[in-house]
């Protein structure tokens, strides 16, 4: 375990930024977001960023390749951009867990090489949550906000930052800043862990349980009459899916530049009317079916295909952002029954 005074944090950032692009959460008009660190950029104290950290590995839009045509010749242009080393500092426990969920999708065969190279180039420094919000329910999914995953885990106190490397990549980064940090014991961190754990027991959503969901539950819930009411006022916007750290659906489209074609990939949303639209039409014609898809995917289909792992991390972003305040907690409580309260 290493520690550094918060007053020296800028020096650490400067040192890291010498070798890689460094992104930290920064306050802005719409809330906190990850921004490129430069001299003078201050780290946000916000619990979480509006958009999740998945953007670093699975950006909302990326050009996959370009084509140029001349007569009958077609030239394929490799303009891949995911080639830089980068460090993301201040990732919370929920987002840190989301990478594991995304890895299972993008790194299983056939490997998504765009995602894979970003994962390879990126170093995650996670930060324990001193003040979880009322919308937090990461514990439901077995996540410990006092000890987040990541290449390095960090704990922030009033005066210091404590750092512990969890992976080889993390060790390397930590040793590169060793001139600014000092070795320390784990006493302060242990105290903070206990404090966070005590807060977790007070959170209003502490009893939300996954017990009723998971592997083999498709038949139990697919035709539930509850979907009608749950989905009846869904606006069909993409807010929940776009702020979600684990939503992973995308679309690939061609953009005609008149000089050629840009093939790009962008996030898709199961809430949209053209989600999985095919030549024959749409297999999920109503908003109810699309709404159901999102929650069944998180709570049943994904666990079915991934050894029981759920694809929600309880970050609470959809709770805070849904225009009609409909969200996965309400779905779990209504489908799962009273004992989920």
């Amino acid at each position, binding site marked *: 375990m290493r520690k550094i005074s918060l007053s020296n944090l800028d020096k650490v950032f400067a040192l890291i930024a010498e070798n890689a692009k460094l992104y930290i959460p920064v306050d802005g008009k719409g809330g906190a977001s990850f921004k490129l660190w430069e001299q003078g950029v201050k780290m946000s104290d916000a619990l979480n960023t509006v958009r999740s950290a998945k953007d670093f590995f699975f950006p909302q839009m990326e050009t996959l390749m370009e084509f140029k045509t001349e007569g009958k010749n077609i030239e394929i242009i490799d303009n891949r951009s995911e080639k830089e080393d980068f460090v993301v500092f201040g990732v919370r426990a929920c987002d840190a867990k989301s990478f594991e969920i995304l890895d299972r999708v993008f790194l299983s065969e056939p490997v998504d090489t765009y995602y894979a190279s970003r994962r390879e180039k990126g170093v995650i420094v996670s930060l324990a949550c001193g003040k979880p919000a009322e919308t937090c329910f990461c514990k439901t999914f077995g996540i410990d906000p006092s000890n987040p995953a990541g290449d390095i885990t960090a704990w922030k106190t009033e005066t210091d930052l404590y750092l512990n490397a969890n992976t080889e990549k993390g060790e390397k980064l930590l040793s590169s800043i060793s001139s600014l940090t000092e070795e320390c014991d784990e006493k302060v961190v242990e105290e903070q862990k206990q404090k966070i754990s005590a807060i977790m027991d007070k*959170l209003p959503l502490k009893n939300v349980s996954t017990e009723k969901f998971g592997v083999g539950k498709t038949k139990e819930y697919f035709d539930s009459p509850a979907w009608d009411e749950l989905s009846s006022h869904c606006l069909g*916007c*993409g807010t929940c899916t776009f702020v979600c750290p684990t939503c992973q659906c995308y679309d690939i489209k061609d953009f005609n530049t008149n000089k050629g074609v840009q093939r790009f990939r962008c996030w898709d949303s199961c809430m949209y009317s053209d989600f999985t639209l095919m030549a024959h039409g749409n297999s999920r014609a109503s908003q109810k079916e699309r709404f159901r898809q999102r929650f069944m995917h998180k709570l049943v289909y994904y666990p079915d295909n991934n050894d029981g792992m759920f694809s929600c991390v309880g970050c609470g972003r959809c709770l805070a952002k849904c225009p009609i305040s409909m969200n996965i907690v309400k779905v779990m409580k209504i489908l799962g029954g009273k004992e989920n309260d």
Partner: protein
Amino acid sequence: MQKITRDILIEKAEKLLSDGTVSRVLGWKKGEFSYDLTPAVFTEVNDIKENFVFDDFSGANFSKYLVKETRKGDGKILVFLKPCDTYSFNQLLTEHRFDREKVYAIGIPCDGMVDIDKIKKMVGDGLVSVDAQTNTLKVETLYDGIKEVEKEKVLLERCANCKSKKHVAYDELIGEEGEVIQSARFDEVAKIEAMSPEERFAFWQNELSRCIRCNACRDVCPACTCEKCVFDNPNSGVQNKAPANSFEEQMFHIIRAFHVAGRCTDCGECSRVCPQHIPLHLLNRKFIKDINEFYGEYQAGEEQGSRAPLVNYTKEDLEPSEAVNRGDN
């Protein structure tokens, strides 16, 4: 002004359901916390008694919901409309978007709805409950005990700049009728107008660059009721799910502002739901301000069936060259 409470609305709903005037009630259902109400349709009195909520977080404008709800089931649906909601209600009727016969509308007075994000900004993390009985909200937090917040400081933008306490449509009104208000809602627009073109571009670039194209502004907008939006139609050539570059975001929002020009009642739902806090209402207000200045005062939705100046030719209309002159500024 009569303080509208949950009990008054429940009593009304119960009576109208029981005597068969309506078969369904559109209302707000309680959530996990004290602020996350969800729009819901109630058909049972017991369900209403248990779950119907009306408080300072009942901000949603229900007018647009009537487009879908009047197509479902038999009988009438009861809807509670705040003054600003009634302008959207009228505008939708002007555009023949729902069957008036299938709605029983009760106008309810409103002294402003609050913005939970503004409260959170003031009290910090971990908001457990909000007691909104009086104009001083008592906010319980996990980390700082109970804090008091003045309601007028945390009003939704549209309520801080409320344009009318008057209901322009209803079947029945609870309480006394209010007045149209001379609000300061165009002040912010005037500030942007006073900017240099470069400053103005930078202002909007900064705001719109946060857009994630979730389409919540469009989906909640009572003026956006196309059966199939051009941006959702793969055959339109402009359908896009992602902001491919910053120009596209501007295109989406500016096209939308043009499309609702003369029809937007300035209900403010777009800005209320934006997950990125983009002040989208300012785009619409710019159009409203221009229309007022060019063609005389016009408030969309004020009168059912009124023709907006943009679709109503008169000989006194402004010459198009006027726009070119203004472009020189």
